[in-house]
């Protein structure tokens, strides 16, 4: 309280802030700038690499959508003040469970998916419950789950099938109503029409001559968009969203105001697990198999996307739209460098640099909001 004595005179001592500065104080700022820079650079230097053809767009959209799905969960959880490092292992675990239920046990795929969703969100609740009950940092609790879940993901298929990849899910999923919700495509008619009109590429020879190269929007992308929209509305437009901010901003203050902080945090752990399971299900339906190494390092990629999107690691501040932009940057750069023929190891260098830049920018933004110096 250095300026404690000056309250009454404080008003004229605060300079009125410029519009620009006002506009800058928003969590999405870093994500917006980053997205603009990334698209400009690739437009200028890699336009004819094929990454802006319909197939190229689909390629990086799909990769970005993958990041988005897990980033939405990680974002809401981080704003609520917690981390989940078990996201990657949860993806592997969920995929493996679907494979074991449907292929090994022969359950119908819809049942395998539903049971997996219930199981994984329950595991998310366990994560949250342990964090809340013990008061330990979620970092360490979920790190334990990272190993536990990965261990089971390798142990189960090895014990049951003597291999670490279980295939044959495509056959099992044939005609399954719920499998289509995760592995199907939408707007196929629209894409055929676009192809007929000559607006998008079509195959020029072979058995699929005349059909569009891109024949629909994969459900993966639909899921990503739905989750981003639902997450954004939940966070900014509902009572529960205010509780998420409050729980992460200052759990004690929130509790004192009657916010059910524990419930909010546990629900966010469950939601993160739900998002990981959506990711896993889409992936399993696309590949037709589940592998024990799926989802490796995804937890960090999700957290990086969220931080690029402007969320504070300490909680209480962030944006789902920002996280989605972070995921978009992630996907565009990863695939763009591939299209541009740049050595892929440089992607990691880029990742480290952009993460550092984002964290520094975020710290600056926080100082502006809270008026610290």
């Amino acid at each position, binding site marked *: 309280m250095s300026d404690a*004595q*000056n309250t009454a005179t404080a008003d004229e001592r605060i300079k009125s802030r410029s519009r620009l500065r006002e506009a800058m104080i928003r969590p999405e700022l870093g994500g917006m700038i980053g997205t603009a820079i990334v698209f400009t650079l690739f437009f200028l230097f890699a336009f004819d690499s094929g990454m802006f053809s319909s197939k190229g767009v689909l390629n990086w959209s799909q990769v970005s959508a993958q990041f988005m799905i897990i980033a939405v969960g990680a974002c809401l959880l981080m704003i609520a003040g917690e981390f989940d490092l078990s996201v990657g292992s949860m993806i592997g675990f969920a995929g493996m469970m679907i494979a074991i239920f449907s292929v090994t046990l022969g359950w119908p795929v819809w049942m395998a998916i539903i049971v997996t969703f219930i199981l994984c969100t329950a595991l998310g609740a366990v994560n949250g419950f342990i964090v809340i009950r013990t008061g330990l940092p979620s970092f360490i609790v979920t790190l334990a789950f990272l190993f536990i879940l990965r261990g089971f993901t390798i142990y189960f298929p090895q014990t049951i099938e003597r291999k670490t990849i279980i295939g044959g899910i495509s056959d099992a999923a044939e005609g399954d109503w719920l499998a289509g919700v995760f592995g199907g495509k939408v707007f196929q008619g629209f894409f055929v029409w676009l192809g007929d009109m000559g607006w998008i590429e079509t195959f020029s020879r072979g058995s699929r001559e005349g059909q569009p190269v891109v024949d629909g929007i994969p459900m993966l992308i639909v899921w990503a968009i739905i989750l981003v929209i639902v997450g954004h509305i939940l966070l900014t437009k509902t009572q529960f969203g205010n509780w998420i901010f409050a729980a992460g*901003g*200052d759990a004690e203050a*929130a509790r004192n105001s009657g*916010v059910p902080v524990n419930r909010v945090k546990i629900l966010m752990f469950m939601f993160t697990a739900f998002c990981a399971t959506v990711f896993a299900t889409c992936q399993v339906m696309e590949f037709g198999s589940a592998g024990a190494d799926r989802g490796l390092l995804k937890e960090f990629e999700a957290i990086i996307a969220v931080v690029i999107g402007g969320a504070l690691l300490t909680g209480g501040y962030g944006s789902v739209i920002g996280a989605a932009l972070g995921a978009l940057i992630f996907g565009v750069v990863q695939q763009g460098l591939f299209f541009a023929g740049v050595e892929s190891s440089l992607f990691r260098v880029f990742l480290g640099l952009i993460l550092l830049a984002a964290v520094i920018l975020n710290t600056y933004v926080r100082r502006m909001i809270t008026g610290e110096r």
Partner: protein
Amino acid sequence: MTEDTKFHHGDPAPSEPIIRMTNIEKHFGSVIALAGVSVDVHPGECHCLLGDNGAGKSTFIKTMSGVHKPTAGEIFFEGQPMHFEDPRDAIAAGIATVHQHLAMIPLMSVSRNFFMGNEPVRKVLGMSFFDHDHANEVTMEEMRKMGINLRGPDQAVGTLSGGERQTVAIARAVHFGAKVLILDEPTSALGVRQTANVLATIDKVRKQGIGVVFITHNVRHAMAVGDRFTVLNRGQTLGTAMRGEISQEELQDLMAGGQELVKLEGSLAGTV
């Protein structure tokens, strides 16, 4: 408790107490934090709860606001025995607490803070949404009443001064129909000017017929607005005095447990 002769329990105020807590005990394992504390609060009065660090003030108000359940003792709210399961029950009954450092969340806007835990909702297509327009409007209005000019309802609380934050918290409690307002050391971290503002706010609130419980260890702040004074020491009530029955020095002595401070005061030449 030798002072009891002249420091008797204050005469009952003319009205019925809103909240009456009798012989409250609270044990944490083997630690006895409260060993029989009795306090009541009447509408429109400012009841000061004084005590040094560790006297049990915080435990007591947490019991009053539903955070802790008392190990023994009874709570009567508007004449009825009450059992608060959690703070939400207490808030619903009309007991609002403004905490020392934990009142507001700096990263959130004033309007989000103002309605934290009590968000106004608007139904759209059967789904409930946070009614931001209403929240912003009410926040600006209430802040104006308390004499704080905001840049906008979306201004972050972090940009407000300590006194302004306390005032926002008090305004929030009053807006949500508090009958009893518990202020936990609202002035302890503030400068002179800000303290005066907060004390003026307390006076405004009291005049609206709300019972104020003002926790402090600053006797001067207590004397400025208090109607009754209760001193806690080592988890026990040393007694309750009406305004005018007790001097600042006597209160100060009671708080520190008497003797030691007299000695200290001698060596510090009355500066404490």
